């Protein structure tokens, strides 16, 4: 028995060593000399990034990008990046959503690469650059934006003879009409995901954060925010919307069965709906996001950047790749096809792939609409450095609305308080 155990142990250790050797060496930049090929590590999760990286590596043997797909994006992925940065094992490049960018900045884990992007500054609109740095400095390269629009079941609206709403007032009227036409159906699902909801606030110019001199300001409980919150609270109280959790299988099922007729969401909702509501293919269409009165502005909910982490030994080469990924025709076509992104760069927006008719949306070339709308994104929006605390608090608060444990206003006030205390606890200057 002992001999057998010993042999088992030896085998296990040998196998372990084998696996260790195979898996060793992840997460650091292996480049040693500047003269030889340079290695740049890149952590991301969006679909298609790996292909763009492969395309780059084919044509750029001198700068080798090693892509590592994180299993999940969002908070888990960011936690990993921040922990790695703290430990000094951070990658050179990281996919960081705009909403989290300020957090990374404040954590001092990013590198200023303004000098390397200067030549291509004009490629991206100013409001987009504002998402990857402050005061005109750039700490990364934007990749995509996510303007919002209204996805709707064209067939259902037509059969019920309900006009597609152009303003939020008309939307409320249409909501009542939908319920009247079919008591089992509702016009839309209540937005309770904090980041999806942020797009609505963004549209109305109700920024949550601001910069005043050398301090942060927090305005989550501003009058404009209250207006947006009250609007959705009203629709919910009148029973005119469903209240599934965001990204829930029950919601997808409702889209499929025609129980929820529309979704006002960002450009990436296009693939979300397409991939999860296959039964209703060909029946959907896209219209501009309903407006607030006569103000011609839309909201943005999403978008990522390729951030350059501190400690990256080759910021120049890393930035070169990042710019390429966001502007090169082949790369952008790939990203559009894989992840249905809307490119942030001007040359990206001119990409012919955006003119393609989408069969799922009845042959409509939906990305043309998003391209036009992207120019109308409200420029008055600022993300803050404690977004994970803000989002967690807002998520908790909004999560209570469907079960009637709280209102939108409660959620906004609670988040205001939580954000202020998070800022103060971490030593940021806050002013009124």
């Amino acid at each position: 028995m002992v001999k057998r155990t010993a042999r088992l142990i030896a085998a296990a250790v040998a196998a372990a060593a084998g696996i260790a050797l195979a898996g060793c060496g992840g997460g650091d930049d292996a480049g040693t000399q500047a003269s030889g090929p340079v290695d740049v590590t890149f952590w991301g999760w969006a679909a298609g990034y790996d292909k763009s990286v492969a395309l780059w590596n084919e044509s750029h043997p001198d700068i080798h990008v090693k892509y590592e797909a994180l299993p999940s994006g969002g908070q888990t992925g960011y936690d990993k990046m921040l922990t790695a940065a703290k430990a000094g094992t951070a990658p050179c490049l990281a996919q960081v959503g705009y909403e989290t960018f300020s957090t990374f900045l404040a954590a001092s884990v990013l590198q200023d690469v303004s000098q390397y992007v200067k030549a291509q500054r004009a490629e991206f609109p100013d409001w987009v650059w504002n998402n990857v740095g402050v005061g005109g400095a750039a700490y990364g390269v934007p990749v995509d934006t996510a303007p919002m629009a209204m996805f709707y079941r064209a067939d259902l609206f037509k059969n019920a003879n309900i006009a597609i709403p152009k303003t939020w007032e008309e939307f409320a009227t249409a909501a009542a009409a939908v319920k009247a036409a079919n008591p089992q159906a509702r016009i839309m699902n209540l937005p309770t995901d904090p980041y999806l909801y942020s797009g609505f606030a963004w549209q109305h110019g109700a920024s949550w954060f601001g910069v005043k001199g050398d301090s942060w300001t927090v305005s989550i409980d501003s009058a404009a925010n209250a207006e947006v919150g009250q609007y959705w609270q009203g629709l919910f109280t009148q029973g005119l919307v469903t209240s599934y959790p965001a990204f829930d299988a029950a919601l997808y099922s409702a889209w499929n069965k025609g129980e929820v007729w529309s979704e006002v969401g960002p450009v990436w909702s296009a693939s979300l709906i397409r991939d999860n509501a296959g039964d209703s293919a060909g029946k959907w269409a896209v219209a501009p996001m309903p407006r607030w009165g006569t103000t011609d502005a839309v909201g943005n909910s999403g978008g990522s950047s390729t951030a350059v982490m501190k400690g990256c030994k080759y910021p120049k080469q890393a930035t070169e790749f990042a710019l390429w990924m966001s502007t090169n025709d082949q790369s952008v076509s790939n990203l559009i096809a894989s992840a249905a992104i809307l490119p942030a760069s001007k040359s990206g927006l001119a990409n012919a792939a955006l003119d393609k008719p989408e069969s799922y949306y009845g042959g409509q070339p939906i990305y043309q609409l998003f391209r036009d709308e992207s120019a109308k994104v409200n420029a008055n929006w600022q993300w803050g450095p404690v977004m994970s605390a803000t989002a967690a608090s807002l998520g908790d608060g909004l999560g209570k609305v469907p079960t009637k444990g709280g209102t939108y206003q409660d959620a906004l006030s609670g988040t205001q308080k939580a954000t202020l205390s998070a800022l103060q606890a971490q030593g940021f200057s806050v002013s009124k």
Partner: protein
Amino acid sequence: MTTTLQTPAPTEPVVTATRRRRPRTSPLTTVNPATRLLVLLVMSLFAVYFLVPVWWLVVSATKGQGELFSGNGFWFGGHFALVDNVQTLFRAQGGIYSRWLLNSLMYAVGGGIVSTLLASMCGYALAKFSFPGREAVFGTVLAAVLLPAPVLAIPLYLVFSYTGTVNTFWAVFIPSIVSPFGVYLSRIYAASSVPDQLIEAGRLDGAGEFRIFTIGVRLMAPAMVTIFLFQFVAIWTNFLLPSLMLADTSLQPVTVGLVSWRELQGYPISYTTVVTGALVSVIPVVAMFLSLQSFWSKGLATGAVK
């Protein structure tokens, strides 16, 4: 290091190596058939309670894609799609699932074996050698069980990153081979089942301490199998530590992999695939448990009675 701390609660054993199992029926009692029926009914009801979710898992893995949330949740769907689902599972994302299963096995089997060895050595020494500081060591090891493991994971990450072991096999393996509970159990078992005379005799014969230990191991075998089994389950279950330590998907165990697939919320990996993956991932654990059942109940018995 494991996150699960609901490990068994053995204490000093009262019995020595020879022990007769109590026979089922004593000749002095009679069995009332009504009582027997009642007892069986109660036990069956609980069995149903425990098995229903497992049954749901089995049934769901046989349903076709897209049928998961329609129809009867507890019975089979239109057609039997288990084979298709398993094929989809093993093909998903370039066959990463089999890699995850292999990783889990390596971590759990390898970690289980090594931790058992280290813990039994330590427990044996604590039981048989009265060296200065013995109780202090034992006390500290036990106290470690009270530490909230999930939050220790972050400092551990920092420690590992200073030595460059992060995002490697070792980042998960090394914490897995430390089993304070294993030390506790093996100390108890060694104290009761390895007689001092054996050690004395061995020393008189001129045998080295380690040689004597290998003989003692045979007597400690049931406890060692117990430690192995519980450590195996604990490592297999472990989610937080590997998800933090490993950025590379090809190093991840199956728990982390399945949760990341679930977070994709149905696309491109469907819920049916996730459910099938969950079912398949249970099989090694159950197989391990069933095959080691006889050893394991003996080991627990010894440890569980003061």
